[in-house]
């Protein structure tokens, strides 16, 4: 066997074995269906948009080209960030490195194997996302079956280049700082960068570009469209090649530039690896000496949780310490903050108050539907922070199970540590959006009551599903929500949200009708029954999830 194939073999065999072990027909069906629905949705939306562009003479292809270049540019940014972080694990912290470095394996093979690993881990999601996008372009512009090969040929280089550059950036950083410190540093940088980009993109309000009155004349508009984002960006070369093939005239030059750049980057990356990797790898073995002032935590949190029993109090304090000392965990709060700001900004940017009269009907409907959206945001946050809570105890379960800690106390601590911050956030989002929307007191009361019930249920479901589908072997908390269990949790939560919205539509429509006719709101049996039903559903979901989670935990064996 070729040495490179030999190095890679254990990885793909492990992946294959894991896939076979974890696959059941039902699981494959659910994942396949969700993936297919997502693909079809992306394809459908883009197909329609491109259809509209195609109908616009002169500037149609320019619009399609601009859209593709923007999409590819965002892919490129995501890939670069993702590769920098992944390279740290695969090149410096992976468990197989000791064996690989101590074996008589050629450095170039180690580099290529690890580069491939980095590329696959950080690019698979982008690659999957690219499929419906390129399919929509190919189908809409009649690219034919050969377009598939063209797309692969022009997308591969923009996967390779960020992998090489990302790995090189990590290599340089590790040579400057210890690897474990670099990981902390990178998580913060990556999150701040991602948050900044998203925030900037939203705050410049791209929807204004769709309004022609924003431009003085058509020529200005076309000039903006014709101008490439930057002629030196690989995403631009890929766009040129794709649009050249689809709309014509096709030019080989961008393809040649793409591949020659990818190969040249690879060679430069390998040279840098040869020069810096041995020192970097040695530095990566250094532990990050971190003395911490634990007494501050104890002094601050001890009195706050003093009414709790000793075991519950120590458990809650332990969970809080672990969260705030792990940069990969707390740094995601920055992104969360950005998303909440954008959420509120979006509500504010809704064109509801453009007319002379405040559209009461629209405000009420938006305020009501906002519940579902806020619930979805909370579910996503719970998936990231509450769902992994049980999995993260896996390696230490020997201690918890051999101590006289009641598993109910453990679940209780995990539940409230997750629920309280979630509840604060839920109330903030709901109250602020309703204030921005100038919603009526009735809608405010309905929103606040419902979101409290939903939060209590969502948090319990996250914990329950986390216990049902534990990922004890995964060390990175951020990977746990992307598992099959995370998907099932999200789907169940969406079903709960839909059910609650449908039930509450009854009293809200009654309220709307009465308000529209200028009558007092009738508090009838249907209205009361609907609110009681929502409360019963949410509280049952809470109780059932925690019960199922507890039963599952009692059966854990290690």
């Amino acid at each position: 066997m070729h040495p490179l194939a030999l190095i890679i073999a254990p990885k793909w065999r492990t992946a294959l074995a894991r896939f076979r072990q974890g696959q059941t027909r039902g699981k494959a069906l659910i994942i396949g269906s969700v993936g297919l629905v997502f693909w079809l949705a992306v394809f459908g939306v883009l197909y329609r948009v491109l259809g509209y562009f195609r109908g616009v003479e002169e500037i149609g292809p320019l619009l399609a080209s601009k859209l593709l270049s923007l999409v590819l540019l965002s892919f490129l940014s995501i890939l670069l960030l993702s590769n920098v972080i992944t390279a740290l694990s695969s090149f410096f912290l992976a468990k197989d490195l000791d064996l690989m470095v101590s074996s008589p394996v050629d450095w170039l093979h180690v580099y290529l194997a690890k580069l491939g690993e980095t590329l696959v881990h950080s690019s698979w999601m982008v690659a999957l996302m690219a499929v419906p996008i390129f399919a929509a372009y190919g189908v809409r512009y009649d690219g034919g079956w050969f377009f598939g090969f063209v797309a692969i040929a022009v997308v591969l280089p923009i996967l390779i280049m960020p992998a090489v550059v990302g790995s090189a950036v990590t290599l340089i950083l590790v040579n400057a700082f210890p690897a474990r410190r670099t990981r902390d540093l990178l998580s913060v940088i990556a999150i701040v960068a991602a948050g900044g980009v998203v925030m900037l993109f939203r705050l410049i309000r791209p929807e204004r570009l769709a309004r022609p009155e924003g431009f003085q004349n058509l020529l200005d508009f076309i000039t903006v469209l014709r101008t490439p984002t930057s002629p030196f960006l690989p995403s631009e070369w890929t766009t040129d090649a794709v649009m050249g093939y689809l709309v014509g005239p096709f030019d080989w030059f961008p393809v040649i530039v793409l591949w020659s750049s990818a190969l040249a980057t690879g060679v430069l990356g390998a040279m840098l690896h040869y020069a810096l990797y041995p020192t970097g790898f040695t530095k990566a073995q250094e532990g990050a000496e971190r003395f911490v002032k634990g007494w501050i935590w104890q002094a601050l949190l001890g009195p706050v949780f003093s009414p709790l029993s000793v075991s519950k109090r120590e458990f809650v304090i332990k969970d809080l310490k672990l969260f705030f000392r792990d940069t990969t965990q707390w740094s995601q709060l920055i992104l969360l903050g950005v998303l909440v700001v954008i959420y509120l900004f979006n509500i504010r940017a809704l064109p509801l108050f453009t007319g002379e009269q405040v559209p009461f009907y629209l405000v009420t409907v938006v305020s009501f539907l906002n519940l579902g959206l806020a619930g979805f945001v909370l579910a996503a946050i719970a998936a990231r922070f509450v769902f992994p809570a049980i999995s993260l105890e896996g390696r230490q379960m020997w201690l918890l199970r051999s101590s006289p800690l009641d598993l109910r106390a453990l679940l209780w601590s995990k539940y409230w540590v997750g629920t309280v911050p979630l509840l604060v956030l839920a109330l903030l989002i709901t109250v602020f959006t309703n204030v921005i929307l100038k919603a009526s007191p009735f809608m405010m009361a309905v929103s606040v009551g419902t979101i409290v019930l939903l939060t209590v249920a969502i948090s319990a479901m996250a914990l329950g599903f986390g216990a049902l589908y534990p990922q004890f072997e995964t060390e990175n908390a951020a990977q746990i929500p992307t598992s099959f269990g995370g998907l099932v949790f999200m789907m169940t939560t969406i079903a709960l949200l839909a059910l609650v919205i449908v039930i509450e539509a009854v009293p809200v429509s009654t309220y709307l009708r009465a308000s529209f006719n200028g009558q007092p709101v009738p508090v009838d049996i249907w209205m009361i029954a609907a609110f009681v039903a929502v409360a019963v559903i949410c509280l049952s979901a809470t109780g059932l999830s925690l019960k199922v989670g507890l039963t599952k935990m009692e059966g854990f064996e290690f």
Partner: protein
Amino acid sequence: MIRLERLTKTFGKFVAVNAIELHVPRGELFGFLGPNGAGKTTTLRMIAGILRPTEGRIWLGGDDLIADPMSAKRRLGFIPDRPFVYEKLTGAEFLRFVAGLFGQDGKVVERRIDELLDLFELSVWKDELVEAYSHGMRQKLIISSALIHKPECIVVDEPMVGLDPRGARLLKNIFRAFVERGGTVLMSTHTLEVAQAMCDRIAIIQEGHIVARGTIDELRQQTAAGDASLEELFLKLTGGEAVRELAAILQD
């Protein structure tokens, strides 16, 4: 103190531990030996309450571990073979947390943390995150955590792994002193010299069955092995032919 009655554990069709009976009284250091995969760790993890027995009962100082796990576990200190601890806690915080799990806190616990860290020469590392600890230091921390709540019995799986000679000697002294004060230690180990030097009695388990038990002299009598060492007894009881074959292969 520790009593096992027809303790059985199966994983699917595989019987890891097969109806074993064992009694370790107070004030005894009991060695639990056996080849790899014989069922030692499974037995110890069942006694620690981590694995649920398929059949049988476990008594810890008169408390049934299955029926009344809280009371039974309060008596126990468990030291696993793999030292997984919370990486983002300091040594002192980890010990405080473990004491909390046993419902203990306050100045008594703080004093005990200082004593234990001092005993295991970890005082300098007291306020450093566990992620910076070496394997041996983690092992010492886990041993400290098993002692923090003053247990009546200690169940320990491969205690010497990762310890330096000084740490190993210290641990031997601690266990000896512990049993002399009326405590009970059930210890699994592959280091037969350690078992021979430290244990009052020994049981040898193979393929889920206890094949021999007693003091070294009793084991010699059972196997008619004259004045053989524990290593020779062990090989005789657990299939020494395989070892001799292995030695022959290595010589080839």
